[in-house]
């Protein structure tokens, strides 16, 4: 991050006054109310909150899969109107094309652009190596473990030269060991590519390990409760005292809100 405050910084990604209301039968549910968020290029931001706080909805709106009921998302002041290759989503359930090999999945984006064959091959090889799956390039997704599938999903959007990596609880379905390994790999990839990351999670530890900023969201209706910069030096050690301090602070913010809400509901 630069400290150059003399000239106005051009915001990379802005979410301005985004509200989202879902119509469920006769009821309308307010999933997001007047959410504002700005991000710099290359930042790693985690969205955290209890189920139903609208964090996934916000991510899907940024991806362009959902339209906000009001407000706007823009990338470099270009309003987002639909899915685009500048924003790549990594889904919790991978969403790989099961009929394509690992190589074909990763080269999907470059192939859509109609790049020359050698160029596609070079890009695909680069990302296959980056996620350590060069030896598995001819496997089908069904022949891979969960962790490997998620590596393919990450490589697939990076190969498409996305500028923002949108990750919707990407490691939520993985076992603890694989999860930790992938967190480290993701940080390495982030350091190397300097891609901007928005990462949805409900694990405080994961958020603190990974991000520059933790955005805490609360439910009913979904809105941003706090925006906390994480200033711990990297690489971060989960057993360190200062790490625990930060983790405790964030957990408190999350639970105090839940507690006050349940008191309000009980009253």
């Amino acid at each position, binding site marked *: 991050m630069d400290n150059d405050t003399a000239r106005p910084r051009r915001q990379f990604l802005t979410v301005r006054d985004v509200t989202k209301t879902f119509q469920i039968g006769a009821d309308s549910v307010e999933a997001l109310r007047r959410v504002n968020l700005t991000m710099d290029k290359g930042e790693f931001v985690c969205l955290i909150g209890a189920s139903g706080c609208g964090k996934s909805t916000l991510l899907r709106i940024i*991806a*362009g*899969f959902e339209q906000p009921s009001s407000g706007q998302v823009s990338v470099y002041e270009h309003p987002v109107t*639909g*899915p*685009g*290759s500048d*924003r*790549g*989503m990594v*889904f919790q*359930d*991978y*969403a*790989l*094309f*099961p*009929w*394509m*090999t690992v190589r074909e999945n990763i080269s*999907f*984006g470059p192939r*859509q*652009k109609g790049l020359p064959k050698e160029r596609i091959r070079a890009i695909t090889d680069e990302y296959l190596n980056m996620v350590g799956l060069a030896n*598995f390039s001819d*496997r*089908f*997704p*069904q*022949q*891979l*473990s*969960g*962790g*490997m*599938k998620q590596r393919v999903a990450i490589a*697939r*959007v990076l190969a*498409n030269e996305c500028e923002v990596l949108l990750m919707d609880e990407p490691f939520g*379905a*993985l*076992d603890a*060991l*694989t999860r930790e*390994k992938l967190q480290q790999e993701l940080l390495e990839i982030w350091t190397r590519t300097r891609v901007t990351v928005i990462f949805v999670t409900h694990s405080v530890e994961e958020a603190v390990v990974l991000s520059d900023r933790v955005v805490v969201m609360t439910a009913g209706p979904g809105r941003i409760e706090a925006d906390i910069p994480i200033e711990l030096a990297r690489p971060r050690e989960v057993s360190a005292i200062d790490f625990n301090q930060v983790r405790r602070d964030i957990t408190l913010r999350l639970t105090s809100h839940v507690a006050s809400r349940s008191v309000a509901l009980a009253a």
Partner: protein
Amino acid sequence: MSQSSITTAPAASGIAAGAAMPGRVWPQERAQGILLAIAFPVALVVLWHLLVVMSGTRLVPTPYRVGVMMYDFAFGGVYDDAFSGTIVIHLLASMQRVYGGFALAIIIGIPLGLLIGKVRIIRQMLDPTLSLLRPIPVTAWLPLSMIFFGLGPRSAVFLVFLGAFYPILLNTIFGVRSVDLRLFEAASMLGCDGSRMFRQVVLPAATPSIFNGLRLAHGFAWILIVVGEMTGVPTGLGSVIMDGRTLSRTDLVITGMIVIGVAGFITDRIIVSINNRVLRWSPQHHG
């Protein structure tokens, strides 16, 4: 439908790969399978023989008599009548009609199914009419098809087409409708849209279901050939069976039935092997 993209249970990390694929079949297991597959029909033939002999019926021939008829039908030299050595003529005639009608059903059924499955206005326009026409038995179309296409092979092709069309259409629609929505989202964020989406996502994702439809439709196609060839064509296995019935030659009827069974079986195996090759990414869809 078991689309593999929805995986809730995490597989073990590291090299768990390969485990998802079916293991190699051991030679003796394979031999046992083939033996069992042969033993059962052999037992049926023995039972058939015993029942005919013990009941003393003259209406049903023994397997041996059918075997002789089959030989004569294939090579001639036994009865030397109108049917001797004519198997190739009849088989080819029937195959042309079956595959003609089947191919027509594929050419129309798959693209139409993709469109109905994916494009809402086309579904709204065509689905009610098609659903209304579907319950009408193919045999009920026989008189009209004879008026439309005359007394000849084209009428048989039309009936086969009608019978094969609906399984292909419905399975294609089902295949498209059950594609995981995330795959469309993933494709669109990677820059895929419009007609490319059809070719690169909709069609391959619907393939397992389409092949189901093809196998069903192929079965119906052979079923309907007998009906189709009742329309007064002089050749074809259906017409042989009809002639056998008129002449009270049950051995001829059963011979025709067996030839249809074998031809259908072989084609089904061919479809299955294409299926396994095309769907090598999804072992649970292997036939």
